[in-house]
């Protein structure tokens, strides 16, 4: 069951990173455009959103990775292997690569601010897209992600 907990935690943190990034972009736009309305007053400060996004991404990505790896391990050990559409594996790896790249750029290359927010949104968008695509094309296999 650990793989489920880790995967859910990972996805939740990625969703949080996505929300923080979206709020960041909106607040950024308002501040740049010198609009001091409701968004300016109610939304959190930019740096705080940036930090939240970074933390969620940096913890969420390894959690999800570990969760998926454990799931694969369990599948191999207890059911004697499993059958998946190679397309699923390819798309899964693609998503993982996008998220991994996002984490690497944030941590390794110290990306911050707007491009980091865009990156994070792209990463979460990829997860969401692949999840939905798999759900539509081959129902019942989405647990793989």
């Amino acid at each position, binding site marked *: 069951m650990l793989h489920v907990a880790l995967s859910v935690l990972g996805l939740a943190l990625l969703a949080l990173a996505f929300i923080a990034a979206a709020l960041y972009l909106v607040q950024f736009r308002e*501040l740049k455009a*010198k609009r*001091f309305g409701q968004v300016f007053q109610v939304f959190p*400060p*930019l*740096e705080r959103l940036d*930090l939240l996004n970074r933390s969620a991404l940096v913890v969420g990505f390894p959690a999800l990775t570990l969760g998926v790896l454990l799931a694969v391990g369990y599948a191999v050990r207890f059911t004697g292997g499993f059958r998946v559409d190679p397309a699923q594996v390819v798309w899964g790896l693609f998503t993982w690569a996008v998220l991994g790249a996002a984490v690497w750029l944030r941590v390794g290359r110290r990306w911050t*601010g*707007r*491009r980091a927010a865009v990156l994070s949104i792209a990463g979460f968008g990829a997860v969401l897209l692949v999840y939905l695509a798999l759900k539509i094309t081959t129902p019942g296999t989405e647990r793989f992600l």
Partner: protein
Amino acid sequence: MSLTVTLVGVNHRTAPLDVRERFAHGAHEVPGALRRVLEAGASGGVLLSTCNRTEFYLSGASDATTDAVWALLDGRLGDGRPARGYGYLRRDRDAVRQVYRVAAGLDSMILGESQIQGQVRDAWELSRGLAGPVLHRLFQSALLVGARVRSETALGRGAASAPAAAVALAGKIFGDLQGREALILGAGDMAELAAACLVDAGVRVTLVANRTPERARAVADRLGGGAAAQSLDDAWEHFAVADIVIASTAAPHAVVTWARIAPAVARRGGRPLCVLDLAVPRDVEPAVGQLENVFLYDLDDLQAVAGQASAERRAEIPRAEQIVDEEVEHFWAWHDTLAVVPVLKEFRGRMEAVRTAELERVFKQLQHLSPEDRDRLERFSESLLNKFLHEPTLALKREAEAGDGYLLVEALRKLFHLEHGE
């Protein structure tokens, strides 16, 4: 003893700055000025003097006392103009309402500002030895009213002045300002004021750059935190590290140009930079605001933020005034009970005298009583008197709190030929 509350004062609504400046009393002048006024006849006084107001609160003041205040202010004006023309006189409930409104920030130039709360406290403390019980209670309650208005309404919320708006804008970019580094360009008053507000919020000023290094040095010393002073030309490099830049040079054209700072900003690695241009004409080229992660604001923007907060604060005025009204009635109820105290005291004294006289008489007639019996009789007389007086005393206090104490005091005075309460 007269228990009236009188206010003689001048504020930013009634007098121009050059007049208010002359009326302003430094902390060391307050006790002397108060003593001079109290000599004309008053039981207590508190002097509240800030750059926006000079107000004498007096208890038990007569016309001679208020005249003494005007004479003192005439003297400070010093050019033959009568100070009376710039001021106002309020009595009792209106005087109480005024100090409550002042403490709440309702009478401030910047509506709802909180500095006045500290100034009211200081005035009370400076005048403590001369305040007397009524004003002591009045100022104590004024501080509570100020705190109540700030916690129960949004009168103190938002950044309602340009320097406060500068702090609010920086806060929306960086969140916590603690330990952030600021660079000051120019040594204008506005820049120093805004920088001082940022320093209060935890920002460290690392560098002050000015055309004349001596002025830069002076500003840096006043802001503290070990800020360095430099000429303007050496400042551009610091755009790579500072978090906040405040510009207010006296230059006739933009000195902070895209070409001068873009190379340094590029080395920031995407970290945001907040540039506050407080100069008129502006110091920063608009193109600077196009740089990624540079947030550029000028004086108009700060005023827009402040204006918005002011509008929101104005909407809170009715609720704040309602709290003030409630508290004025509250204070006045206490004040009314104060008026019955001397009458009650005298009434009690009179009864006590009767008791001891009658006891003496009984003891003379009953010489055979043992000391224990005399003691018992003495205690009996005391308890009898207390029981007789208990209900009337409570009734008087109750009526006084409800504001109708006057009738009963008058009745008591007539029935027992008391002197007080006239």
